[in-house]
């Protein structure tokens, strides 16, 4: 039985949702009216920035670093799957893990991706130049969550332990860099919207392959 760990896990989720909402509202701060006359549409810029602009063909950070892009994407897919599994377990603690082998394999690859990113952060001079303890804590907490999710999927760990570590993740979520899970959408919307308003986005159809 989950017992008190279920309540702690629930509290951690509520904590994360409430704090992230407050942070988002404070960052919004009532918005920023634009008094300039538009030449494009904000909505088209946002749509473009979340679709074509994110493709490796349009985004150099992905195109020039395909391995890192793939590893990062795999990590995020695993985390999303892990959070989904956690949500199902939180709602129905008695529910047996769904598709444990498939889940385990995906989460396992995702965990490996997290380990690679951790090593990269430890050895890359560029990353070391801007890393703080938060950058390492975030990946360790996330990696631990993925590891516990795998063990729980194969019923190798008690639900209380699984909930306990997951709670650590959700309590930590709004405190450090992990809050990018929400602010990613806000930041990309803001820049996409602004460039859409100015007519920069969506990028004009180009004659020839000259991009």
């Amino acid at each position, binding site marked *: 039985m989950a017992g008190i760990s279920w309540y702690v896990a629930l509290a951690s989720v509520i904590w994360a949702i409430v704090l992230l909402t407050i942070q988002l509202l404070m960052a919004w701060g009532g918005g920023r009216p634009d*008094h*300039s006359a538009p030449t494009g549409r904000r909505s088209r810029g946002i749509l473009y920035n979340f679709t074509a602009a994110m493709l490796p063909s349009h985004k150099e*950070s992905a195109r020039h670093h395909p391995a890192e892009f793939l590893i990062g994407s795999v990590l995020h897919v695993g985390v999303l799957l892990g959070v989904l599994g956690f949500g199902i377990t939180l709602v129905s603690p008695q529910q047996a893990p769904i598709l444990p082998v498939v889940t385990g394999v995906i989460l396992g690859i995702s965990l490996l991706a997290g380990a690679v990113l951790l090593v990269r952060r430890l050895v890359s001079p*560029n990353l070391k130049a*801007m890393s*703080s303890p938060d950058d390492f804590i975030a990946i360790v907490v996330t990696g631990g969550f993925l590891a516990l999710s795998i063990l729980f999927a194969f019923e190798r760990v008690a639900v209380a332990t699984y909930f306990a570590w997951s709670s650590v993740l959700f309590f930590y979520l709004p*405190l450090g860099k992990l809050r990018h899970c929400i*602010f*990613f959408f806000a930041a990309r919307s803001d820049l996409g919207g602004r460039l859409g308003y100015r007519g920069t986005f969506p990028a004009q159809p180009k004659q020839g392959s000259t991009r």
Partner: protein
Amino acid sequence: MSKPREGNEARPQRGVDEAMGAEQMERAAVSALNEAVRGLGAYHMNACVKCGLCGETCHIYRADPTPENLPAVKADKVMSFYRRYHTLSGRIAPFLFGARSMTPEVLEDLVDDVYGRCTCCGRCGLHCSVGLDIASTIVTGRRILAATGKVPADLQAVVKNQLETGNQMAITQDELKSTTEWIAEDLKLEMDADVQIPVDAVGKRILYLINPREVKFFPLSLLAAAGVFHAAGEEWTLSSRFYDVTNYGLFSGDQQAAAAITRQVMEEAEALGVEEVILSECGHGFRAFRWEGPNWLGESYEVPMRSVLDLLLEYLDAGRIQVDPARNEARVTLHDPCNLVRWGGVSEQQREILQRVVSDFQEMVPNRENNFCCGGGGGALSMSEYGEIRVGSGQTKVDQIKKTGAKIVATPCHNCADQLLDLSKQHKLGLDIQSVVELVFNALVLD
């Protein structure tokens, strides 16, 4: 590329910071930070994952790939202030979360990062994994430094000139008058017509804003514009007091100054009773007046405003001017100014014009919103202490130009033109740098 300077003692005196105590400086810095992140700006302070994949998107990093030139490293220094003053975790445990207080020493160290190692071109933001507006984060750093009196002296001097004299080069009204007079005389001979350059004429259709460089160093741009306006039968005027299309408040981070410069021009437009303001070819000037100006003033303009590129294309479309592309035979490529194209949304007009007025047009790759900064943006040309970084960072642009095989580089920006001239000299490229209007004028077919 070396560091911009040997030590703090090499930096020109900036004045205000010497008089500010540490506490007063921190208060001013926090106030500027609060103002900069108010409303949406804070989104970008919260979203960086520090993946470090932005390096190759930056012309400065490409020229000198050291961690200190990585866009994310530069931006993180500003974000660390946000974490310290705007997040609970950063206040309680600054070491854990990479939060830093804005002490005089920390602010002093930031100067080279945000003024010397970034032109705020915004290319990194377009290619960022997350989609952060990194350039605006750097601008936040500049706003903080402007509030604490740490704007590099040369850049501050330009802003001061604009506020005190109405133009960044402190050109006198007599100087403007004599220059416009000889340009008009020259045009009369060249066009065999009674060409006028109206100054302070009330009730004309357009007020034309120019870069003071056009008066002081590059009169051919003004001559070409005046010739094209004459050929199109345009009703236009210059102002003798507020004709400057530039606004270095955008670069210094002093938004009060930027607003004051904007206001004096717009009040002049209203006083002259024009129907619209036309901005000559100036990348940052277009961005500053067209997009940022109304927000600095907190209100929409009474008089509409657009780029001269729009007007030139309108003349061509309406048949108000006739051109012959054979008159520009040499291969021409186009450099896209970041502030006009990426931040301004003007990318196709100049291409449509060039396709009609030159016979051999070759695009650079990449181009348009993905084009690389030439290295002269962000006020870099006015900050002598960063000259070495500026010229060195143009290597990517040099490589782009070489690949086109062009003899002429057209660019609708005088800052870019200055930088491209420096690059051409440095690399012995033998390039001719021209504005779009000069190429249009050269292709004019007169009756």
